[in-house]
């Protein structure tokens, strides 16, 4: 503690006896060394005493009568009036929130391009062994790296997994033939 402003901050706490013992001891030392601090502290003490003794103002004699008249003259609010106000306020808040959410969503959609996940059909190539004109073109075993236009590793993993599932299904079904594409 050495700074005048810092010491001034402790004046009220010192007068109200809420300073911790160490700080109080330091403050008292500072009081002895600084006449200005002592003068300020004495004035604050005097001031708080004076403020507590300010004369009190009296209410006029007809205060309660006037209040009663005011209360009795005001029409009672309609049963649903306050509720209507609250509901309309709540409704407008919800509306604003919805507009904000949709606004943010549309902004986000503009920024990110929707990932184009290739469909299963894009991966189908007609193996030589399959006769032309077949209705169900078998899914061939192929390397995805050459044929996919995938931006992120996660997206490629999703596609890979789904292809593996399809492959598994086909392997389980003995009727279908699995061809091989050449790289």
């Amino acid at each position, binding site marked *: 503690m050495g700074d005048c402003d810092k010491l001034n901050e402790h004046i009220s706490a010192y007068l109200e006896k809420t300073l911790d013992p160490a700080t109080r001891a330091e403050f008292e030392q500072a009081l002895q060394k600084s006449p200005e601090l002592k003068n300020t502290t004495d*004035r*604050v003490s*005097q001031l708080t005493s004076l403020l507590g*003794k*300010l004369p009190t103002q009296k209410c006029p004699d007809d205060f309660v009568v006037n*209040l009663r008249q005011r*209360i009795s003259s005001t029409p009672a609010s309609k049963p649903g009036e306050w509720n209507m106000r609250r509901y309309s306020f709540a409704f407008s808040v919800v509306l604003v929130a919805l507009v904000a959410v949709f606004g943010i969503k549309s902004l986000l959609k503009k920024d990110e391009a929707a990932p184009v996940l290739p469909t299963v059909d894009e991966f189908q190539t007609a193996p030589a062994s399959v006769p032309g004109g077949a209705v169900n073109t078998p899914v061939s075993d192929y390397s995805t790296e050459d044929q996919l236009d995938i931006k992120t590793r996660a997206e490629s993993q999703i596609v890979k997994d789904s292809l593996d599932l399809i492959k598994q299904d086909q392997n389980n079904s003995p009727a279908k033939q699995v061809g091989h594409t050449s790289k």
Partner: protein
Amino acid sequence: MTKTVNDGILSRAANKTLPADEELIARFQNGDVYAYEQLVRRYKEPLLNFVYRFIGDLVEAEDIVQDTFYRVYKNKHYYKEVAKFSTWIYTIASNLAKTELRRRRRRRFFSIHRDTQNEKEVELPDLEKNPEVEANTIVTEKIIQKAIGNLPPKFRQVIVLRDVQGFSYEEISSIIKVPLGTVKSRVNRARLRLQQDLGFLLNDLDDVSN
């Protein structure tokens, strides 16, 4: 002269037959209008003094206190026993007083007249008894009120609640919805500012008492 709120609390504590504020408001919420009137009589002067010291205009302070009680009457069901009744009613009064101050600032800005306050005529005390003391008291009070009025509203509010009305720091923190540390800091800064503005008065009073 004693601090108005604490006096009321002490006398109620002494007289155990007097119901607590929370009991009165609960009765009022159940339809007992007499309980409401008891609260009005209990709080009208403490609130008047708080608002008057805060905005500096007695006529306007009376209107604000009327408004406060009117709102208590109309919105009695909003009071929940989580907070003290005194905190609730002082919060209402404080908010109304702040609104009035804001309105005045706008009025003063747009008005061509500088003096827009309606000063109620203050009844002069009987100066024949002890003219010097009475006159000094009035002058002192006016000077102090002027100095309080020169404080920024956030300092004025806390110094009136703390040093004039006698509220604890915790109660003030609940009333004005400001952290405890901030309340203590504002009170200290308000006191430092006031003792600076009223230095001449405090020195005179010191000389008189010595």
